[in-house]
Structure formats: structure tokens, C-alpha cells
């Protein structure tokens, strides 16, 4: 049953993946800027350019280039970077680990604040506490994360000298160093995420609080804390969960700039560098990878959905 569902969902996502791959491929080829010229650099000459183009496979017609790439990708070979001959897939995985750590930490921190804040605000809907929470969330939502990053560096890195401003240390190497390096980039992201999550939680909690079973639970004389914790929270989280894919998308977008500012070797910077360098295999591979993750997350959420929402389970 679940397997059949899974298979169906995977098949249904194939068009998405296909469209993305074709679109990214065509878009890249339309972008001016010759990767061969960049690799050859300032001592360029036409014979050398032609040789490098051939080496990169850029001399073939476009459909042939696409099919060759697709065939390789289907075999699990994402090709090699134009710039430093690094194999794309392992590089992606390595960069992704860094990004995931920042995103996961930012997400957990913001969830820890946002879920109680959102539920509380909804519970006190239109009262002073709600207005205060919603207004602060809106304020946080309005702080550009890169600006926040710059100010954090100025304050904690340069003026006070408490935190390192640059780079990444793997957790296995030194947990304290890891934390010191990851704390500022995470903080720069946390504010906006907390704001988004709080608003989502508040909206879905308001929705749930309006349901009949809540009125019923209250009429049974259950204390509000139990109503909130047992009946409301669980049902309010579910719709938020369905937005997880989009939230992660916004986090990924956010990390692009944050990783640049803090010099984190993550997926976002990898992609930006590749775009500037016209490193086609890296751009194609990375975007496809991001879309794969997005699709996978949505499938997982769909699978989890019936487990979390009793109403769907019954139906």
C-alpha cells in the first residue's frame, strides 16, 4: 500500500525533474559568458579556446550535450567541475553536509521558539500578547539576513572579538570550534525563520482552535493547558509540516548569501561560485540535487501526513 503510494509519487515527480533538468540546461546555455574563456583566462587565444571547449564537450550540438549529461546522471555520474576537475557528486554531498548543519540548527532553534510562541499568540488571539508576538515576528521578518550577518560580524567578530568570522570546522574535529563557527551564520538565519514559523503556527492554531472538537474538549471542562497541548498542538503542527518543503527552500535561498558572507563551504556558495564561473556541470548537478531533495521531502511529508493527522488516517 505504502510502496504503491511511494512508487506513484516518485513517478509523478519525474516530469518535474525532467522539466528542471531541461530548463536549467537551456538556461545555462543562454547565459552569456564562455566557460572555456574563463578557464583559459587572460592569456586567451583562439586555438587554446577551441581545445579547451572540446575538452569540456562544449563543441558538440546542444541536444547531444544534454543527452550525454542525462545518460551520465542516470548512471549516477554527475560529471566533473570545469574549474578544478573535482567530481561533482561527492563535492555536492560534502558541501551539502555543511549547509544541512546550518539549516537544521537554524530550523530547530526557530522551531523551539516559534511553536510555543505561535500557539500562545493564537490562544491569545487579538489580545495584547498576540499583537506583541505578531508584531515582533513581523519585525524579525523584515530584517534582511545578510544585513544581520554583516552587523553580527561587525559586533561579535570585529568589535568584541568573541567569535570567529570565517570558515567551518567539522563537528568531529572539535565540537566547540564547530559551535563557535556555526553560531553567527545560524543566528543570521534564525530570525527570519522564527518569524515565518511563528506566523504559520499561529495561523494553523487559530484554525484548529475554531474546530468543534476543541469546543467539545473545552465544554468537557478540560483545563486549557491540556486542550492546547494534547488537542491543539498536534493538529496545528501538521499543516505547518506541509510547508516544510517551502521553508527549507527559503532557508536554502537564505544560505546562499549567508555562506558567502561567512565563508562557509556549503551548497549555496558552491552554486554561486559555479554560476559566476559558468561551471555547467556543477550548476546542473547542484540544482538537480536541490530539486531532488525538495521532491524527496515532499514525498516524506506526504507519507507522514496520515500518521500525524487523525482525520486523514480515518479517511
Amino acid at each position, binding site marked *: 500500500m505504502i510502496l504503491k503510494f511511494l512508487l506513484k509519487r516518485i513517478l509523478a515527480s519525474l516530469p518535474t525533474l525532467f522539466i528542471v533538468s531541461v530548463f536549467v540546461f537551456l538556461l545555462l546555455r543562454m547565459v552569456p559568458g564562455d566557460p572555456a574563456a574563463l578557464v583559459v583566462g587572460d592569456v586567451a587565444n583562439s586555438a587554446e579556446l577551441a581545445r579547451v571547449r572540446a575538452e569540456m564537450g562544449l563543441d558538440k550540438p546542444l541536444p547531444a550535450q544534454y543527452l550525454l549529461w542525462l545518460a551520465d546522471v542516470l548512471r549516477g555520474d554527475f560529471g566533473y567541475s570545469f574549474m578544478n576537475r573535482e567530481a561533482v557528486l561527492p563535492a555536492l554531498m560534502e558541501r551539502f553536509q555543511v549547509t544541512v548543519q546550518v539549516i537544521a540548527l537554524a530550523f530547530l532553534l526557530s522551531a523551539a521558539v516559534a511553536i510555543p510562541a505561535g500557539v500562545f499568540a493564537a490562544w491569545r488571539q487579538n489580545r495584547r500578547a498576540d499583537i506583541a508576538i505578531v508584531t515582533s515576528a513581523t519585525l524579525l521578518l523584515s530584517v534582511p539576513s545578510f*544585513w544581520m550577518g554583516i552587523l553580527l560580524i561587525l559586533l561579535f567578530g570585529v568589535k568584541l572579538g568573541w567569535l570567529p568570522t570565517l570558515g567551518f570546522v567539522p563537528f568531529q574535529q572539535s565540537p566547540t570550534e564547530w559551535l563557535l563557527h556555526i553560531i553567527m551564520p545560524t543566528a543570521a538565519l534564525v530570525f527570519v525563520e522564527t518569524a515565518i514559523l511563528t506566523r504559520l503556527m499561529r495561523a494553523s492554531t487559530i484554525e484548529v482552535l475554531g474546530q468543534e472538537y476543541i469546543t467539545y474538549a473545552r465544554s468537557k471542562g478540560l483545563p486549557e493547558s491540556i486542550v492546547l497541548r494534547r488537542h491543539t498542538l498536534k493538529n496545528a503542527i501538521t499543516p505547518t509540516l506541509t510547508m516544510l518543503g517551502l521553508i527549507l527552500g527559503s532557508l536554502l535561498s537564505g544560505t546562499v548569501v549567508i555562506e558567502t558572507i561567512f565563508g562557509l563551504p556549503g551548497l549555496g556558495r558552491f552554486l554561486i561560485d559555479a554560476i559566476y564561473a559558468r561551471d555547467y556541470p556543477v550548476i546542473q548537478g547542484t540544482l538537480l540535487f536541490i530539486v531532488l531533495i525538495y521532491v524527496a521531502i515532499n514525498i516524506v511529508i506526504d507519507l507522514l501526513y496520515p500518521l500525524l493527522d487523525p482525520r486523514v488516517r480515518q479517511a
Partner: protein
Amino acid sequence: MRFLPAPFRRPVYLLSFFGIAALLLAAVLGAFYTPYDPLSLSVDARLQGPSWDHWLGTDHFGRDLLSRLLVGAAVSFRVSLATVTVALVLGVTLGTAAGYFRGLADRIVSSIIDAFLAMPGILLALALIAVIGPGELGVIAALGIAYTPNVARVVRGNVLSLRETNFVETAQIFGHPHWYILWRHIVPHVGGPLTVLASAYFAQALLSESVLSFLGLGVPPPHPSWGGILAEGRRFIADAPWLTIYPGLLIMISLFCINLLGDALRDYLDPRFEPAS
């Protein structure tokens, strides 16, 4: 304040109205009058801190920051507004087509929407700018296209549910042409959610333009957008922090006001709204 609908009477919302009005006024003012020519260079006035002559200081070309921010307001708002318009026009067209006609059209549009939603918007915009070309138009087109799938998704959802309503079915039974049904019965009902969406994307566009400037591809100099001023000023953050702080603050205040306005609109359009006591 009696003339305002209930949700808008909240103090924070009122504040946001005044904020937006002030910013718009500044943008309009900037088009006619600035204390200094925002583009004229002066060797002697380089990197001066806020003073009586230059209220917000000067940049590394000796240009007056206040004048540049005033002109920048117009640039930033113009870009954001145009971006939202592009996204709305494209998104409503695609979303309505998909939601109303369903079938193959829906399948195709939905797949495309899904594909685009899966890509981080800012990166999509970055690649699009590279293709379309730099400059204000490039930024508008790129961001507009990047936001289109989101708009289309919301519109499609709304149209799908509207399509099942009685008045649409009745209209179809009466044999009204599709364009008439769409225009009379569908588009007006999508208006509410779209207004909220538009305010959210206006804020997003303002932010994204500054991110693009930061990454090196925003509105080109010398005509300054806030993001552009911020991105350029960052080089001097220790020497001239005003160049980073003021444009950042303005972006933040604008986003705050616009987001609050969006909240007010949402509350207004949301039937569940209960006025605060």
C-alpha cells in the same frame, strides 16, 4: 479614524500606514528635490560622517547619502512594484488557465510550477538576470519570473475551488463564454488573496533586489537602489558604518511597514477576524 475598517484601527497598523506614506512621499520628493545632486562627485567630501551639511554622511565619491537614499527610494519602490506586477500578470494568467481549464493545461502548468518552486528563487533570478541582461529591466523581469510560480500556485488553488461553486456552474449552464465567466466570476474572487500576496511579494522584491545587489547584479550604478547603496557601502563598514546602517535600516523599516500592511489586509479579508476589544 472611524472611516477605517476595524482591523486597520490597530495602532501598529496605523503606524505602518504612516510609515508607508512617509516612504512614498520621500520617494516622490526624491524625484523632484534632493539636498545635493546624488550623482555629482566631490573629491573633498569623501567618506564624511553625518553632519549639518550632510545629514547622513557621504560615500567614497563624496556623494550625499541622504540624496542618494531619497532617489534610491524611488528606484527600489519602482523595481518592487514592477516586479510584483510582472509576477501577478504572469501568475494569474497561468494559474487561472490551469485551475479553470484543468486537464492537460493544468498538468503542464502544474509541472512547470512544481519545477520552479523547487529551485531557490534567488538563484533562479541570478541565472535569469545573466540571460536577460543587467540593469533595472533585467532585475524586474528576473524577479518577476522567479515569483510567478508562487502566484500561479495560489491562484490555481483558488480558481479550482471557485470553479466548483454554484455561480460558476450556473454561468456555465447559461452558456456564457469562458472569458466572461473568468472575468465576471473568477477574477474578482481571487482579488482578496492576491492583494495579500502582492503585499508580501512587494516586500520580497525589495529584499531580493538588495540581495541581488549584494551578490553584484542589482540595479546598476550610478542610479542607486537601497540595496545597491548598501552593497557598495559595505566595503567601508569600519570607516563609514553609516553607508551600511542607514540603507539597511530603511530596507528594514519598509519591509516592516509593508508586512504589517499585508497583515492588516489579511485580517480585513479574513471573515474570522474579531476586532480587538
